[in-house]
């Protein structure tokens, strides 16, 4: 435009410069050589909304953004001094006070003044570049954003060229490999790829360049700078070239070392579990949400008699006896609906049924697994027939031992008891014999006979009562738990032991607490325990001659609310053997079996109580046992 204006000025008749400038759509200020404004065109006035007087002199500078003005003035001054063209960018204020970007250029023009003398003018033309400026800024921002995103991405990203050299690599990628940016740019991507993975990798890259594929995914290992390996999953895309940019490969690199490790661990565990399930001696059966069998291991055949293939798809209930099926189905449904377990999942004892219909005890543990949104239940089923049998055998042996011990204890009591039975029998015999003798001599007075017979009846009854009492001890009575007042049991046992007490000159001190809570217990077993403790107490005092032989029998409620019975003696005490008193076959008695206390203890423990031995002060021992108070007194 400047050249045009100059050209016009040179080749044609002088034209009215001002009129010409007026028509230019760009904003133009015509200034004198020193830069002070002479006039501005319409476009200027319209844009800036400034009147002519405001333009006068340096006034037009006021339209330039204050931030841009110093630079503008400096450049103007430099260009003017050097006689060079001037071109700059600055924001110019619009009538509505908004600033817009303009490219400002200065051209020199020759104007003729009123007398026709040519004079030099500076034309300042301002071209609106606001749109372009904004677009540029947007591009810049966008580029920065991309750059930042690239650099800061948590996932590794890198680009490489046709010959596999790195073009760019972000921080995540660099950290993954342990190289700095500059080190990396010296290398090819294949240099850092694990030797064993290169060939396959190269093949895929080749296919990309040959256009056989647009992208590929590969799991491979890089060798880090420190020599260790890192597992990655690369998503590689061929980015086609654009005019200035050659095609390159964009690679997203994900570190999957952890996942690989987990995978291999999982695979190991799965293999191991697989082996375990396959070789386990327990039946392992998986069922789905409907209760249908999905899987059964080989041991299932051994336990249930079915071939695993016979079971697949069948309901689990086929392994249960009829009466358990409904219970199982209800429980299974309830669990599926509410998540509430109605049985213990670890080691519940149930009953299984074999293919041949035989029922047998099993111990089942369950596991639950959710896979793809479906629940799978695994049952570990152990045949415990043998264990049960062994348990029963042990129980029987214990019961037998207990009975033997009871008989042994009884043996110790035989003297007392025989005496008690024989007393009334003697009386009966004597009375009857006397009657017979009187009868033979015809001297039997009916009154005498009557009183003799009455005595016979009384003594007969007495003998049978004693025998009834003994029978409870000797009989192989199955345990029968009832609500008992322990004080009653104490009194019953003392009735039996009274003779032993008096024969051994033992003073009995009874300290029974009234209205004790009842206990739920087997009467005969408790009698046995008490008898054993009382007999032990008596025997412990046989050697005592220098002090009173006293046996205290106490009942009370202990701190825990349990019923406590203590048998205290003033005998020789536990001594150094205190630790052994509960050991089976340990005895200090010449004829003892050493079973009394161990059996007593197991009897007490089978009632949920404890049997303890403590020294008595100043002499003797205390044997005490607790029994839990029964929940409620029966009405």
């Amino acid at each position, binding site marked *: 435009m400047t050249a045009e204006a100059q050209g016009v000025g040179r080749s044609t008749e002088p034209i009215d410069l001002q009129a010409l400038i007026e028509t230019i759509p760009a904003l133009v200020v015509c200034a004198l050589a020193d830069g002070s404004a002479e006039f501005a065109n319409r476009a200027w006035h319209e844009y800036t909304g400034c009147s002519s007087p405001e333009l006068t002199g340096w006034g037009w500078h006021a339209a330039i953004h204050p931030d841009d003005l110093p630079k503008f003035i400096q450049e103007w001054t430099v260009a003017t001094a050097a006689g060079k063209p001037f071109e700059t960018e600055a924001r110019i204020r619009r009538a509505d006070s908004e600033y817009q970007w303009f490219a400002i250029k200065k051209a020199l023009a020759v104007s003729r003044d009123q007398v026709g003398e040519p004079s030099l003018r500076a034309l300042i033309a301002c071209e609106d570049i606001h749109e372009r400026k904004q677009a540029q800024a947007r591009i810049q921002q966008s580029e920065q954003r991309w750059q930042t995103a690239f650099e800061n991405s948590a996932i590794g990203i890198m680009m490489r060229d046709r010959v596999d050299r790195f073009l760019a690599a972000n921080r995540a990628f660099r950290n993954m490999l342990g190289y700095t940016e500059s080190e990396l740019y010296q290398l090819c991507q294949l240099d850092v790829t694990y030797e064993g993975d290169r060939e396959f990798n190269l093949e895929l890259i080749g296919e990309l360049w040959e256009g056989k594929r647009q992208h590929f995914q590969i799991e491979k290992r890089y060798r880090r700078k420190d020599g260790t390996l890192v597992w990655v999953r690369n998503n590689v895309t061929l980015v086609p070239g654009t005019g200035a940019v050659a095609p390159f490969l964009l690679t997203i690199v994900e570190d999957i070392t952890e996942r690989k490790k987990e995978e291999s661990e999982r695979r190991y565990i799965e293999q191991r579990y697989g082996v375990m399930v396959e070789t386990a001696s327990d039946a392992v059966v998986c069922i789905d949400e409907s209760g249908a069998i999905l899987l059964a291991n080989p041991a299932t055949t051994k336990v249930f008699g079915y071939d695993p293939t016979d079971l697949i798809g069948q309901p689990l209930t086929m392994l249960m006896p009829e009466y358990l099926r409904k219970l199982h189905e209800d429980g299974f449904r309830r669990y599926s609906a509410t998540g509430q377990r109605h049985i213990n999942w670890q080691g519940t004892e149930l009953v299984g049924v074999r293919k041949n219909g035989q029922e047998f005890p099993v111990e089942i543990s369950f596991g639950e697994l959710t896979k793809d949104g479906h629940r799978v239940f695994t049952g570990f089923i152990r045949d415990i027939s043998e264990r049960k049998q062994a348990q029963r055998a042990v129980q029987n042996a214990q019961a037998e031992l207990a009975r033997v011990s009871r008989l042994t204890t009884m043996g110790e009591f*035989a*003297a*007392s008891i*025989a*005496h*008690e*039975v*024989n*007393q*009334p*029998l*003697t*009386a*009966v*015999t*004597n*009375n009857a*014999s*006397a*009657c017979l*003798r*009187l009868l033979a001599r015809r*001297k039997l007075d009916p009154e*005498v006979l009557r009183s*003799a017979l009455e*005595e016979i009846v*009384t*003594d007969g009854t*007495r003998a049978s009562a004693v025998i009834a009492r003994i029978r409870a001890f000797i009989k192989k009575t199955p345990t029968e738990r009832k609500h008992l007042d322990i004080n009653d049991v104490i009194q019953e046992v003392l009735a039996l032991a009274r*003779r032993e007490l*008096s*024969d051994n000159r033992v003073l009995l001190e009874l300290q029974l607490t009234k209205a004790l809570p009842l206990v739920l217990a087997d009467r005969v077993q408790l009698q046995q325990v008490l008898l054993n403790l009382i007999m032990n107490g008596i025997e412990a005092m046989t050697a005592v001659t220098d002090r009173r032989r006293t046996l205290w029998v106490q009942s009370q409620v202990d701190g825990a609310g349990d019923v406590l019975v203590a048998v205290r003696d003033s005998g020789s005490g536990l001594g150094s053997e205190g630790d052994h008193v509960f050991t089976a076959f340990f005895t200090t008695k010449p004829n003892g079996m050493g079973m009394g206390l161990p059996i007593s203890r197991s009897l007490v423990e089978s009632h949920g109580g404890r049997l303890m031995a403590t020294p008595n002060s100043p002499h003797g021992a205390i044997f005490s046992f607790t029994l839990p108070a029964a929940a409620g007194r029966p009405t």
Partner: protein
Amino acid sequence: MTQAPMVFVVDDDPSVRSSLKFLMTSVGLQVESFDSADALLKRKLPDAPSCLVLDVRLRGLSGLDFQRELAARHCHMPIIFITGHGDIPMSVRAMKAGAVEFLTKPFRDQDLLDAVRIALEKDRERREREKEVSDVKERFNSLTPREQEVISMVVSGMLNKQIADQLGTAENTVKVHRSRAMEKMHAQSVAELVKMIDKLESSVRP
């Protein structure tokens, strides 16, 4: 003079006690019963053949202890033990200590009555023996010291002459002492005298 035989019963069981009394009364025995040894000890024992039917197990003093106690008091009443449950050591101990019989309850009535009869007979004999000894002793005590001296020498087998020599008297004097002593002792012969002195000595010797 001699009272009727008496049977004492000690048993702490009232029905056994009364039935024993009934049984023995039915055969005409005199019976007295006690519930403990102490009760019997308080009673003055009669001057008549008697025996004791004693239960081994008693409240307070036991039967065997009571047996010892009676011996310590020089009471030689024969004892028949009865027991509801006797063991061998117990019966051996009782028999060694002089029991007549050891019966286990319940016993045949005849066994008890036989034992009682034997016991009473033993006691009667013992009492007779004791009476004889005390008679001899009484007679022996009625002799003068010199007569006693002479008698002792006669019994030891010395001749009148030897006695006279030892005592430093005349043989005739010894003869007089001897015949008077024989008369006082109611001895018909030297043999009879020897028997009497024997009894006397055996009763004195422990």
